[in-house]
């Protein structure tokens, strides 16, 4: 496992670079910490997730275009958004297993001077940490005692599903990868009844009341379990749980005050990085109590 070889194309997608800069910042820092080189490809465009509902063919070509751009540089793709991960992984799975589809897609990409041959692998950044860095190495590097902080794990549906496209790297009915990653930091992934509940992000624009009810159900369940924060690895789940939390509290007349922390931020704290370096200033529901307790308070992160 030589560090020098770990070089990946960083696929940011739509939401991360605009609405989740704390996630991007902390992920880049974690990558650097573990000797993972992330290459930016400015020509990347939307993965096609929002377009799948309207036209699956267009969505497939959009995902293929990004894969072709990574392939051109001889790099595998690393994603931060769980929805992008699902779309890129599924498209990749489809194109690698269906040569007719690949040819059809390439006919369109050719006009753009691109071709996808099917050699790229797509990894969510958290999966990469699990598979390439490994739980043992993460544990070795932990410097700050997170004091068994109880947190609710939410990786997002498309972290493991559909399992066939993800080649069963984790069991979607009984997952452990994400929990192992959380537990490696010294925090504790605390079970809760609505663990498998989806964030509802995909129907926010269709029925806001249903989407908000889904969020409320989940946040209530995490709170009830006694967790002090929710740990996320998807910027769109974060839009639902953190960025809309105030509105949802009002709408449902229910208080949650649930800090939403990206896994890369949590890991960063455990590795001894300062909250400012990890973008905590951008977090809306401030985890001030948690930061104070583990002794890393920064003036800028208090409410």
């Amino acid at each position, binding site marked *: 496992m030589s560090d020098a070889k770990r070089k990946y194309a960083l696929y940011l997608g739509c939401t991360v670079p*605009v*609405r989740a800069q704390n996630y991007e910042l902390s992920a880049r820092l974690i990558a650097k910490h573990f000797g993972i080189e992330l290459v930016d490809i400015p020509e990347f465009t939307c993965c096609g997730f929002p377009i799948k509902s309207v*036209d*699956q063919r267009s969505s497939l070509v959009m995902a293929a275009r990004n894969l072709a751009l990574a392939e051109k540089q001889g790099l595998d793709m690393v994603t931060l958004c769980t929805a992008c991960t699902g779309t890129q992984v599924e498209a990749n799975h489809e194109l690698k297993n269906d040569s007719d589809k690949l040819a059809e897609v390439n006919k369109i990409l050719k006009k*753009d001077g691109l071709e996808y041959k099917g050699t790229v692998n797509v990894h969510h950044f958290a999966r990469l940490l699990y598979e390439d860095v490994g739980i043992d190495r993460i544990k070795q590097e932990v410097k700050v005692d997170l004091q068994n902080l109880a947190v609710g794990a939410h990786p997002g*549906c498309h972290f493991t599903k*559909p399992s066939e496209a993800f080649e069963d790297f984790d069991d979607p009915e009984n997952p452990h990868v994400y929990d192992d990653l959380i537990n490696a930091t010294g925090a504790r992934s605390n079970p809760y009844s609505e663990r498998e509940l989806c964030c*509802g*992000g995909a129907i926010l624009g269709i029925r806001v009341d*249903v989407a908000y009810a889904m969020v409320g159900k989940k946040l209530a369940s995490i709170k009830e379990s006694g967790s002090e924060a929710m740990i996320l690895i998807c910027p769109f789940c974060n839009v639902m749980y953190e960025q809309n939390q105030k509105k949802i509290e009002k709408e449902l007349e229910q208080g949650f005050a649930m800090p939403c922390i990206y896994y890369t931020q949590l890991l960063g704290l455990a590795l001894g990085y300062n909250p400012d370096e990890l973008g905590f200033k951008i977090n809306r529901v401030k985890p001030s109590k948690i930061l104070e307790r583990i002794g890393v308070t920064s003036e800028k992160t208090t409410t």
Partner: protein
Amino acid sequence: MNENQDAEAVEEVTKAQEPKVIKFDELDPNFKYEIQAEPSGEFITRCYACGTCTASCPVRSIEETFNPRRIIHMALLGMKKEVLSSEFVWLCSTCYACFERCPQDVRITEMMNALKNLAVKNGYIHPAFTAQIDLIQGHGRLYEADSFVNKKRAKIRLPELTESPDPIKAIFKATGLYEYSTEAKESKELPQSGNTEGGSNE
């Protein structure tokens, strides 16, 4: 599948829309073949109506009118217009819970996409998606990479974000999706101005 369940399925639709009964001469027996001709629609006829999908569905647990098993059953019955014009085809949150658990591997989440794609082809695109087509076609992403965003990024030393809308527009033109964009509609409507479409409000 018994008749009670059929009646229940119909009742649920009628609750969501105007009251009506199944009229056999209005059923389209070819609807299931149309669905099967769409990408990922091919396995719909495998469904034996066990209800595992509905029991697993997080949207269903909140919104009763959304029921994947019933949607499939209605589709198989040939209730084309009722299925394609309904709000409920758009309500799947693509969580894949049903996809993983379906004993018949109907691949429901993807099959829902086939239904939505067919709804679009039949003129029932949800306005939320027209907006997304416009944004992605205009910026290459769902959000604009304007100077405000880039100033924020520069402040925390993140690399500048650029836009590549042209390749996306080219893709949409090649697949025909471009026709559903506001830009395409407006260029067509230019001669007889003032003719605006109301969207599918229910």
